[in-house]
Structures are given as structure tokens and as C-alpha cells.
């Protein structure tokens, strides 16, 4: 009991420090542009990774449709949020659908309160749309198992992408030109939480929901399906119902993350949500540990930081004396990145966290162990 209380205290302190750090970052955002953008992208990918982990790691459904559901969220959010005065600039080729314009006029003339929360409504709508799509597609797709499910969902994701970039939807999605002038993250709570911190809060709420779900009775049923479908069914668990639940919830949160990604990038096109995006997320999940939420979060930050920031150095030309090292040029960082990945996978066969979750006891134990070791040397 005491231990639990102590751990709660540590968690609260850690959260408080994190918030202080975020506010500090907000105050000094101009000097730390790279850090801000890596952290924001990291936290968004963390949400997709966790929602993919819910499906792949906890329910045992090997799905590769994440990018498709992200794009549904991203496009919905983007279309709803592009300011009415920028519409003509964005849809300069084909013009905008009159219904969208009328809707935006309505929002722009609505009371201020609605305008303030509208970005969040847009995120939610994107999520619900993706969840609805998942519910319908799930009826057909969830009958498949393992590799076949992966292929079907992969195809699904490509279909969504093709639809968004098709010329028939030019007036809605702007076809292959993509959408831009998407407003940045909105502030929350009347400015008490600055816009820089918003994605962290939204993602935190979503991940907490997923964690609670996994800990609930339904989460346990998901795990049972992962372990042994036949036994789970014999224990009275309706396979289709529970698989659908997991699929829908995972898609919902992927779409929320997609909406956040649209706000982060400020401009999106269908190409952003190609198969490579799904693979990037799969990579994060595998590196973090299939079946570990904290692993996914941790690895989302590590992978993003390594890819976008820490390894940039390899892309610049390097001079030793007057000799230019031939390998150091644009793209070389990806080679190093891949090599690092292989090393990580070789060392941690089941991902950084395996199926474990972060817990204070283990960290403290390790610290104590180190300290006693050092003490022994003296």
C-alpha cells in the first residue's frame, strides 16, 4: 500500500516536472524550434503507435491500415479548419464545393464559444468518421486472420488514399494538389494551455483512455483473443464483437492523430499517408515492444528524434582537414538509422520494453543496484 502511494507521488512529481518543462519550452520556443517540432511529431506518432498496438499487440489482429484511418482524420480536420478567407487560395485549381463554403460561413458567424472549441469538434468528427468506416469495413475484413488481414487492411488504406486524391473529389479534397493553410494547434482552456502544448494534452487524454480500456474487462478479453481465439470463444467471448470494438477504437484514435498531424504539418496531401507511413508506425511499435504502451510512446520519441534530428549530422558534408568524407551527403542518415535499428532489434529481440510497462519499482531497483555496485568498488 505504501509502495503504491509512493509510486503515485513519484508519478505526480514527474508529471509536474513535465508540465513545467513544456511551459518553459513554450516560453523559449524560438531558440528550440527543432526540439519543439520533434516532440510534437513524436507525441502524435506515439498516439498512432499506441492505437496500432491496441490492435496488433493487445488484440492480436495484424492490421496495416493505420495510414488510411489517419488520412480520414487528417482530411476531415483539414477541410473543416481551413479558414474561409483562404478557401480560394487553397482550391485555386478547381474551386471549392459550395456546401463546404456555406458550412464555413456558418461556423465563422457562429458564437465565439463554438469557434473556440470548433477545432476539437473537427478532430472528434474525423475520429468518428474513421470509426464509422472501420465498423463497416470490419464486417468484411475481420473474418480474415493474420497475414490475410494485414493484406486486406493494407489494400484498404491504399483505397482511401486513392479516393482522396481522385479528380472526382477535387472540390472537396483538392485532389492531388493536397490541402494547405491548415491552422496550427488551437490553445486550450481560453489560453491557459498554449497552442504548443495542446497536442500533448490531447494525446495524453487519448492514451489514458486506451490504457484504461486495456486494464478493463474488455481489455482482458482482447488479450484472450490474442492468446488463443478458439479458447477465447469457448470462454464465451464473442470474437467478432470484440475484434470490431478493438478495430473501431484503434481507428478512431488513429484518425485523431491524423487530425493532429494535419495541424502540425499545416499542409497535407494524399501521398503523406502512403504505405510508408504505416511502416514507420509499425517500426515504432516493434521497436517499443509489441504489447507495451509505454514502449510505443518511448520509441515514438526516440525514432522521431533519431530520424529528424540527432542523425542530421550525417547528411551534411564533413571535412577532415581538406578531405571531404565521401559518404556524408543527403540521405546518409537513413543508412545509419537503418543500421541502428538492426542493432536495436538484435539486442532487444522483443522491443525495448518487451511486453512490460514502465514502473517505478523497476527503475528504483536498477538505480539502487547501480549504487550498491559503485559502493562495492570503493
Amino acid at each position, binding site marked *: 500500500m505504501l509502495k503504491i502511494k509512493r509510486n503515485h507521488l513519484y508519478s505526480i512529481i514527474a508529471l509536474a516536472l513535465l508540465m513545467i518543462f513544456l511551459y518553459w519550452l513554450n516560453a523559449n520556443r524560438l531558440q528550440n524550434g527543432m526540439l519543439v517540432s520533434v516532440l510534437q511529431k513524436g507525441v502524435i506518432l506515439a498516439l498512432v503507435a499506441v492505437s496500432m498496438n491496441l490492435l496488433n499487440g493487445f488484440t492480436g489482429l495484424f492490421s496495416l491500415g493505420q495510414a488510411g484511418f489517419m488520412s480520414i482524420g487528417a482530411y476531415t480536420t483539414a477541410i473543416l479548419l481551413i479558414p474561409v478567407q483562404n478557401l480560394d487560395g487553397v482550391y485555386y485549381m478547381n474551386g471549392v464545393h459550395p456546401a463546404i463554403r456555406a458550412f464555413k460561413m456558418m461556423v465563422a458567424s457562429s458564437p465565439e464559444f463554438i469557434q473556440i472549441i470548433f477545432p476539437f469538434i473537427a478532430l472528434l468528427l474525423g475520429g468518428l468518421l474513421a470509426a464509422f468506416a472501420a465498423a463497416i469495413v470490419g464486417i468484411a475484413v475481420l473474418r480474415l486472420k493474420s497475414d490475410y488481414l494485414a493484406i486486406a487492411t493494407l489494400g484498404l488504406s491504399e483505397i482511401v488514399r486513392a479516393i482522396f486524391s481522385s479528380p472526382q473529389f477535387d472540390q472537396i479534397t483538392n485532389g492531388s494538389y493536397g490541402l494547405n493553410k491548415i491552422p496550427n494547434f488551437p490553445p486550450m482552456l481560453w489560453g491557459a494551455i498554449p497552442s504548443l502544448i495542446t497536442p500533448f494534452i490531447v494525446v495524453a487524454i487519448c492514451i489514458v*483512455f486506451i490504457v484504461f*480500456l486495456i486494464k478493463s*474487462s474488455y481489455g482482458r478479453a482482447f488479450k484472450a483473443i490474442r*492468446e488463443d481465439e478458439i*479458447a477465447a*470463444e*469457448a*470462454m464465451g*467471448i464473442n470474437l467478432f464483437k470484440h475484434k470490431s470494438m478493438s478495430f473501431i477504437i484503434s481507428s478512431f484514435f488513429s484518425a485523431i492523430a491524423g487530425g493532429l498531424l494535419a495541424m502540425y504539418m499545416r499542409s497535407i496531401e494524399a501521398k503523406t499517408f502512403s504505405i510508408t507511413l504505416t511502416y514507420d508506425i509499425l517500426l515504432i511499435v516493434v521497436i517499443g515492444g509489441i504489447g507495451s504502451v509505454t514502449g510505443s510512446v518511448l520509441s515514438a520519441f526516440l525514432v522521431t528524434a533519431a530520424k529528424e534530428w540527432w542523425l542530421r549530422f550525417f547528411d551534411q558534408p564533413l571535412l577532415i582537414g581538406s578531405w571531404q568524407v565521401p559518404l556524408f551527403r543527403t540521405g546518409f542518415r537513413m543508412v545509419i538509422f537503418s543500421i541502428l535499428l538492426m542493432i536495436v532489434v538484435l539486442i532487444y529481440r522483443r522491443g525495448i520494453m518487451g511486453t512490460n510497462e514502465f514502473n517505478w519499482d523497476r527503475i528504483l531497483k536498477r538505480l539502487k543496484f547501480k549504487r550498491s555496485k559503485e559502493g562495492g568498488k570503493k
Partner: protein
Amino acid sequence: MKEILLKTEHITMQFGGVVAVDDLNIEIEKDRITALIGPNGAGKTTAFNVITGGYQPSNGRVTFDGLVIGENYPRSKMKKIYNGTYKTPFEKQVVNTPDKITRLGMARTFQNIRLFKDLTVFENVLIAKHCHIKAGLFSSTFMLNREEEAKMLQDTEALLDRVGLLSNRDEKSSSLPYGKQRRLEIARALATGPKLLLLDEPAAGMNPKETEELSLFIKEIKESFNLTVFLIEHHMNLVMDISDTIYVLDYGKTIAQGTPAEVQNDPAVIRAYLGVDEA
């Protein structure tokens, strides 16, 4: 006045041209232990799968507790190739998935143990409690069903205590010794709150001492949980010791039925098990 809990009428299961179970008629009396025996490949597990909803019979009807839970007749392609002994087709089609049948009160174990291997002993049993959950996904996630959840945890604890696995509660289920894995599988089935417990070769791979313990254990849980038990078994000692009624299957056909003493002396059974003297 005997009360019938489970009844199969003319169950015939045909895979392609092979009739795995042919015209099986079983009546399982309430509060009794009934056994289904027969040589390898006699169709025992197939019969189990038909009863629990894993397979749809080619022809026949399964009634559980007064409710028809499965009924079928030869349709489309099966209509042409149907080769069962019982020719009169049934008329309706009733399909229930295994999870529905479990919720109606029929729980089973598997011939090759199917535990949730990476989960703990406690979780294995707790998951089986999920099938009767009243709270929806959201109230469960936001912990609005504290009472229900607490009861699930408490019941699981009590059940583990009763079957003697409480000391292993936080161990991974795959790390248990074989005998205890069998016991855990039965405990997990009990957690669904069944009226009828189906055991598929519960003593497979056990030594004589473990088999004896198992037979005591089955008798014990039958009494304390008010169960009716239906089992498939190879160990004759176990079957003869605990069963009230025995059905003997060979090549899909029922060749004998009766009390252990009757079955033991039935020439057809001896022939099926020991082979016929050609001379």
C-alpha cells in the same frame, strides 16, 4: 423421473465423403457423469465440437436444457453426397456460435490444453468471467462498474482457492506443471458458470497418480458446483471409476451404451478395442 440436460438426435457429421459421426443419439442426465469412449479416430472430439457449436452437423439436432441450440439438414452440395445412416433430413437450421453456447451454460476444456499462455493463472480465470459482464465498453473503461469488477475479482480468487491454485495465482499459466495446467483449464471453464461441463480427454498424458487425483477432483467439483459432466476419455480406469453412463463410439457409430459394468462386458466393445480374432 430422470431429467435430461443435453440431448443429441441423429447427429451426423460428414466431412466431404467421410462420415465422422454417424447417427449419434446421446442423452445426458442431469447431475450425472456421462462418458464417451472409443478408439482413436472414432469421432469423439468431432461429436464434442458439434455439441459446443464449433461445427454445424450435416444432419441432426442438439437440445440443451430444453432449448434447441443446433440443428441442420443436408443442404446444397451436402444434399448430393450425404451418406449418413439416418436418412430423414431435419427441417430447420439453427446455428449458435461457441461463445453463445458457453453463455447458455455449457463450458468445455480441450484435448490439447489451450490456456492463455502468456497470461497469469489469475487472469486466465478472470477472463472467463467476462462472458457475463453487464457493463458496456465505456462504463467498464471509466471504471463505473466498480462493484461488478470487484465481484469478478473476488469470485476468481474464491474459485482459485477452491481448486487449490491460489498459491500459483500470479504465475504465468504456461509455467505450471502439466497436472496443474489441466486443473486450471477446468477452473477456467467453471468460471463461466456452467450447468454442463464437457471435458475432452482430461487425463491425457497423466501418470496413474495424477489420474487418480483428477478423478477425485472431478467428483468433488461435480458435487460442489452442482454440475453435470460429460467427458471423453481414454483412461479406462478413470472412466469406469467415475461414470454413471458410458457411450462407446467406433468409426462414428455408437456400438454400445450403458453402465460401466454393462459396457465392459459387451462383446462389440471388446472387439473394437482389442481387434477381432481372425481365426
